[in-house]
C-alpha cells in the first residue's frame, strides 16, 4: 500500500467571480521511503498538492490519505495533532522564528509531544547534528547564513521523526553552494534515514536529486520520470 494516496481529487478556487479549477480528478500514489520532486510552471498546482497532503488545505472533492489516514476528511481539531506527528514542513523562506535560537526553533514541534525535557534535548541535538549545525545551537536566525537557516528548518522538520517531509522550493533563496548542502542533506535523509520526501521545485538540480520527478501542468501530470538507481 502506498504511503500517500491521492484519489480523484478536485480542487477549485474562486477569485471574485472567476472560478479556477486547479485539479480535475487527480490520482497519485507515493511509496514509503520515496523521494519525489514535483515540478511545473507557476500556478500548475504544485504547492496546492503539497498543502493537500499536509492537511493545510482541503480538496473540493476526492480523498487524500497518508499512511492509511484520510486527511481530507479530518476536522481542523484532528488535523493539527496529526500534522505534528506525521508532517515535517520546510518553506522556501525558511520561516524560522527570529526571536528563538536554532535550538529553540528545532524544539518547537517537540513542545507538542509528551516528551520530557531531557528527551527533547536529546532529539534536538541529534537533529541539529544530522544537519551539521550542532555547533550553532544558541545562534539566532539572524546570526546564520541562508543555507544554515534552511538546515535549521530541515532539522525542525525532522526532529519529531515525521512520516513525511514536505519541502516547498527549499533552495529557492539559496546560493549554489548552500543549495548543494541542502540537496546533499535531503539525499542523506532519504538514503540513510529512510525518510519519505516530497519536494516542490523549479530547480532541475533539486529534481535530479529526487528518485521520482512529476511534472504538473494545469493540474495534471504531463510527465513522470523515475531515476535509475
Amino acid at each position: 500500500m502506498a504511503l500517500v494516496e491521492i484519489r480523484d481529487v478536485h480542487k477549485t478556487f474562486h477569485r471574485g467571480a472567476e472560478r479556477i479549477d486547479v485539479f480535475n480528478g487527480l490520482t497519485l500514489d507515493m511509496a514509503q521511503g520515496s523521494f519525489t520532486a514535483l515540478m511545473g510552471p507557476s500556478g500548475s498546482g504544485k504547492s496546492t498538492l503539497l498543502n493537500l497532503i499536509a492537511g493545510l488545505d482541503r480538496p473540493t472533492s476526492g480523498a487524500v490519505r497518508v499512511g492509511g489516514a484520510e486527511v481530507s476528511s479530518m476536522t481542523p481539531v484532528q488535523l493539527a495533532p496529526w500534522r505534528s506527528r506525521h508532517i515535517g514542513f520546510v518553506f522556501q523562506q525558511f520561516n524560522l522564528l527570529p526571536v528563538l535560537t536554532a535550538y529553540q526553533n528545532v524544539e518547537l514541534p517537540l513542545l507538542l509531544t509528551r516528551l520530557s525535557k531531557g528527551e527533547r534535548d536529546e532529539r534536538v541535538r541529534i537533529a541539529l547534528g544530522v544537519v551539521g549545525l550542532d555547533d550553532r545551537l544558541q545562534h539566532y536566525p539572524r546570526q546564520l547564513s541562508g543555507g544554515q537557516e534552511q538546515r535549521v528548518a530541515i532539522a525542525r522538520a525532522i526532529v519529531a521523526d515525521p512520516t513525511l517531509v514536505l519541502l516547498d522550493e527549499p533552495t529557492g533563496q539559496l546560493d549554489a553552494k548552500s543549495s548543494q548542502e541542502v540537496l546533499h542533506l535531503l539525499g542523506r535523509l532519504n538514503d540513510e534515514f529512510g525518510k519519505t520526501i516530497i519536494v516542490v521545485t523549479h530547480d532541475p538540480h533539486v529534481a535530479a536529486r529526487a528518485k521520482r520527478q512529476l511534472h504538473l501542468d494545469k493540474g495534471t501530470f504531463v510527465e513522470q520520470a523515475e531515476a535509475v538507481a
Partner: protein
Amino acid sequence: MKFLPLLRANLGRHKRRTLLTIASVALALFLFASLRTVITTIGAAAQFGSARRLVTTNSTGFVLPLPVAYANRLQAMEGVERVTWANWFGGRYGDGKRFFATFAIDPKSYLDIYPEMSVPPDQREAFLQDRSGALIGVRLLDIFGWKVGQNVTLQGTIFPGDWTLTIRGVYTPTDPVINDDALMFHWDYLDERSERTGQAGWYILQIDRPENAARVAKAIDDQFKSSNAPTKTGTEQAFNASFATMWGNVGLLMNTIGMAVVFAILLVTANAMMMSARERTREVAVLKAIGFTDRRLFGLVMLEAGIITVTGAVIGLGAAKLLYRATNFNAAGFLPGFDVTWSTLAIGGMIALLLMLASGIVPAARAARLPVVAALRNVE
C-alpha cells in the same frame, strides 16, 4: 511551562514596546487605585464616629458659635454623660504653605471624650497644666521638626495676632480616620485673648446608650429652640458625613476620571497587542503548519496579554499600596487614613483581568482563525 521560552521570546521581541505597555497598565491602575482611595477615605471619614457621641452646633450653621454657657445645661440633660466643646482657630504657621487644622478645646473633657487620641500620661498632664500649652498630632513632629517643650507661634486668621504656644504633648490616633496633623490648645487661652468671649464652636456630647441618641438630640434642640442661638444636634457620624458631602459628588468625578483613564489605557494595550499579532502573521501560520492547534495559539496570545496586564497590575497596584503607606500620605491633612484598601486592590485586579480579556481576545481570536494556506501564500 515548556512554552515559557516561546512566551518570553515573544514578549522580548520589542522590549521597549512591551515595557511601555506594562508601564501604561501600571500607571492606569495606580491612578485608579489612587482615585478610588480618595473616595474610600472620604467614605470612611463620613462613617467615623462613636455611636455614643453627639455633636451640637448652631442651627444656622456650624460656622456660627454657641454660648459656652450651654455646657452646664447640656451636661444636665438626661442621658448625657460628658460634654466638651471646641472652636476652629484657623491658625497659620510660618509661610502658611503647609496647612494643618488648629482647634481650641476644653482640654480635659475633650481628651476624656476622645480615647482614640492616645497621649502619654506625663504629656497629657503637662498639657492640661499649661494654659498656653499645645497638643499636636504626631505627623507635625515630622513635618516641622518640632519637639516637645518647643515654643511655636501661630498667626491667627479668625482670631488675629501672634499666638505663641508651648508644645506639651503629642497625640497618636488609634483610629486612622482621625487627623494626625492637627494642633490643639486651651479654649480658655483663646477666650482670654479673644474679643469674642464665651463662645463655643460646637459641642460634643457623650451619651449613655447609642439607642438614646435620637431622643437626647431632640430634647437638646427642643430646649434651645426659643433661645437666641438655637441648636442642631445629631450623631457624630452624621456630622462627619455632612463634611463629606461638602466635597460634592466627588465620588462620581473620581470614578469617571478613573474609568476614562482605564479605558484610554485599554485602547493603548489593545493596540499594542494587535500590532504585535499582526507582525506575527507569518509565524502563526508556520506554527499552525507545525501542528499548533487553534486553541493552543489562542491560549498563548491570551497568556501574553495576561503577563503584560498582570505585571502592570502588580506594579501599579503594589506601588499605590506601598507608596502611600510608606510616605504616610494624607493630602496635607485633608484625607487622614489615606490607605489603598484590599477591596480597591481586588477591583483593580478585576480591571486587570478585564483589560487582559479585552486587549487579548481580538489578536488571540485572529491568530486562532488565521487561514494557514492564505497566510503562507502571502508571505512566501
